[in-house]
């Protein structure tokens, strides 16, 4: 392990990998910063480029975008009081008052430093736990793998959404879409209507582009004619570098945010927005001056930024070791790795050990690169907040088109993108979440393959899933995650409403 670990580090030091990472970080910072654009869109726009790249620079680019996006969201939250990403929505609580007080550079500096802190903390967890977890997961056979993937889909469908039923409808639709094309065991066509295009199934890229980019495009276009707030604050170069005093004040907040962020990131489906509000709440509870929160104090910015950056490393642990993505972005990264022929999961550490350790090293470098670009370039990057949407919107849309087309140089994929775009809009309108569908699309083939292989091995006996303790554990956990929202709803109904709250309500 030690040799591979250092080989991974050396691999990452190659100029082409560092360059790809820097490009990714800059793009991530910009997309994360501009309200209306998200890190997922940025990854989708850049995904086609990874097809023509080697796996290492490709993952360096994607991880650069991931960490950059998480960090960039805070820039607009601090400077114009609009979070660039949902994961930065608590940064503005203290960031904006500090900027308004005339200290925007200090707020940005605390935010960039906290992002680096959170990222490095989660890197340590990733480097320590991922290989161990992969070793455990190597013992899994097909029934266990089926149960594990089923658990991953069920936890995202129930915890990440407001309605469990709609979450599962979304997952079921994703799995149904997965069944179109070649049967993964026998290789015969299913639901293809004798179309050669459908025989290969839907390519993941146009599907992702449609589902993520179209709803964003529509919402940005809706507001496009509304003039946005212009950036007024100047960022003095010298003041952007972190001061020891601020670091000392924010150290505990950084630590609490990092621990919570890594843990929440590890749980599939929970994600950044939950982590940041939990971190903010806990840091305030442990603080000696809780009444100051919301007035523009360093701890308020630091804990949120440390948490949302730590989510990335946390989310990469189940993605790399179990093949279960922690959030939407890791689901897209997982799809990209599958296209590269490097399916994440326990076998990644055996069959492609060198790549696995390089990926871990890439995450470390991505954090440093993002922080460095943040410190040195923030005063120029934030100027892009004034860039008109009228230019950005068609530019991104054309990139989305090229991404879909380049997947197989086919117009079928382009129209697939459009079709899934309309589906994404309909789902958005009906409040059906898209993330379970994406996860089901990425994991659907594996789920079916493991189910059928396990049943074939057991000669059709379904008890094979209940006799293995690991499989039983994951299936029980799945049942619990499915039932939990119903139990809490039932409990809420049974709790008698107090006279006080009734009075308040009236």
């Amino acid at each position, binding site marked *: 392990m030690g040799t591979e670990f250092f080989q991974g580090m050396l691999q990452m030091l190659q100029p082409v990998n560092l360059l790809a990472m820097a490009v990714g970080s800059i793009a991530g910072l910009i997309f994360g910063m501009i309200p209306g654009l998200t890190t997922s869109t940025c990854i989708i726009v850049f995904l086609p480029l990874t097809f023509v790249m080697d796996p290492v620079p490709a993952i360096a680019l994607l991880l650069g975008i991931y960490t950059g996006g998480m960090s960039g969201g805070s820039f607009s939250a601090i400077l114009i009081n609009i979070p660039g990403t949902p994961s930065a929505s608590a940064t503005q609580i203290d960031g904006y008052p500090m900027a308004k007080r005339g200290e925007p550079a200090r707020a940005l500096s605390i935010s960039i430093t906290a992002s680096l802190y959170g990222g490095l903390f989660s890197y340590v967890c990733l480097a320590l736990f991922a290989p161990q977890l992969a070793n455990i997961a190597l013992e899994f056979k097909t029934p266990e793998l089926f149960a594990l993937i089923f658990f991953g889909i069920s936890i995202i469908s129930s915890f990440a959404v407001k309605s469990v039923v709609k979450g599962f409808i979304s997952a079921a639709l994703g*799995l149904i879409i997965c069944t179109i094309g070649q049967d993964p065991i026998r290789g015969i066509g299913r639901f293809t209507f004798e179309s050669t295009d459908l025989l290969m199934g839907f390519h993941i890229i146009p599907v992702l582009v449609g589902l993520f980019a179209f709803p964003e495009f529509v919402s940005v276009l*809706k507001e496009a004619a509304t003039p946005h707030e212009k950036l007024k604050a100047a960022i003095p170069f010298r003041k952007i570098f972190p001061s020891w005093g601020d670091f000392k004040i924010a150290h505990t907040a950084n630590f609490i945010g990092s621990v919570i962020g890594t843990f929440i990131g590890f749980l599939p489906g929970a994600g950044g927005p939950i982590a940041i509000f939990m971190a903010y709440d806990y840091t305030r509870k442990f603080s000696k001056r809780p009444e100051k929160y919301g007035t523009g104090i360093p701890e308020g910015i630091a804990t949120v930024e440390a948490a949302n950056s730590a989510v990335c490393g946390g989310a990469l642990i189940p993605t790399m070791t179990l093949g279960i993505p922690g959030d939407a972005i890791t689901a897209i990264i997982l799809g990209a790795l599958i296209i590269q022929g490097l399916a994440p999961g326990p076998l990644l550490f055996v069959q492609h050990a060198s790549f696995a350790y390089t990926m871990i090293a890439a995450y470390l470098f991505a954090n440093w690169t993002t922080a460095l670009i943040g410190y040195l370039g923030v005063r120029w990057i934030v100027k892009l907040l004034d860039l008109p949407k*009228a*230019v950005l919107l068609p530019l991104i849309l054309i990139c989305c088109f*090229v991404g879909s087309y380049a997947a197989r140089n086919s117009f079928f994929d382009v129209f697939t993108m459009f079709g899934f775009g309309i589906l994404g809009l309909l789902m958005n309108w*009906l409040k059906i979440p898209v993330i379970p569908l994406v996860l089901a699309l990425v994991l659907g083939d594996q789920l079916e393959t493991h189910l*059928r292989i396990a049943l*074939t091995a057991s000669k059709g006996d379904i008890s094979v899933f209940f006799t293995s303790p690991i499989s039983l554990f994951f299936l029980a956990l799945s049942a619990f995650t499915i039932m939990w929202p119903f139990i809490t709803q039932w409990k809420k109904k049974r709790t008698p409403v107090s006279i006080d709250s009734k009075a308040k309500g009236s």
Partner: protein
Amino acid sequence: MTPNRLAAFVLIAFSIGYGYLTSQQPKGDILGEPGSGLFPWILTISLLLLSGILLVQDIRGTALPRRFDFRITPGGVRSVTGLILIFAYLCIMPYVGFLISSFLFFGSIMWLSGEHRPFRLLGFSCGISLLLYLFFGELFQIPLPKGELLRGLF
């Protein structure tokens, strides 16, 4: 008819159609391989069940959104026009090629987003379309569509 009720009915109809197609899949073999229809059958039943629950939730008034919101707003009109423009862009591209269609699309989306100054419109549409063509087509060697109508020219 509430949105959820409509969605539930559409999903039930879809599940029935999907189930019908699944019934035509080959069955399992004597060696115990469950066949390519097993997984789709599980999905058919699951989707039917879930759609049924959504319908019940809607009838009991626990599912959101409760009603259609069809107000015509300038933003809504812009969004629908934008979608029509994307569709038109995708349809004309095989005929006129990436460069010309992107130029037209870029300009129309800029116009739709409120940019009406002719020099900016032309400059950005021309410049960025050309830049994207060079970046993807030349640098990354993606064979972007040249257009049936203009094939002879390039």
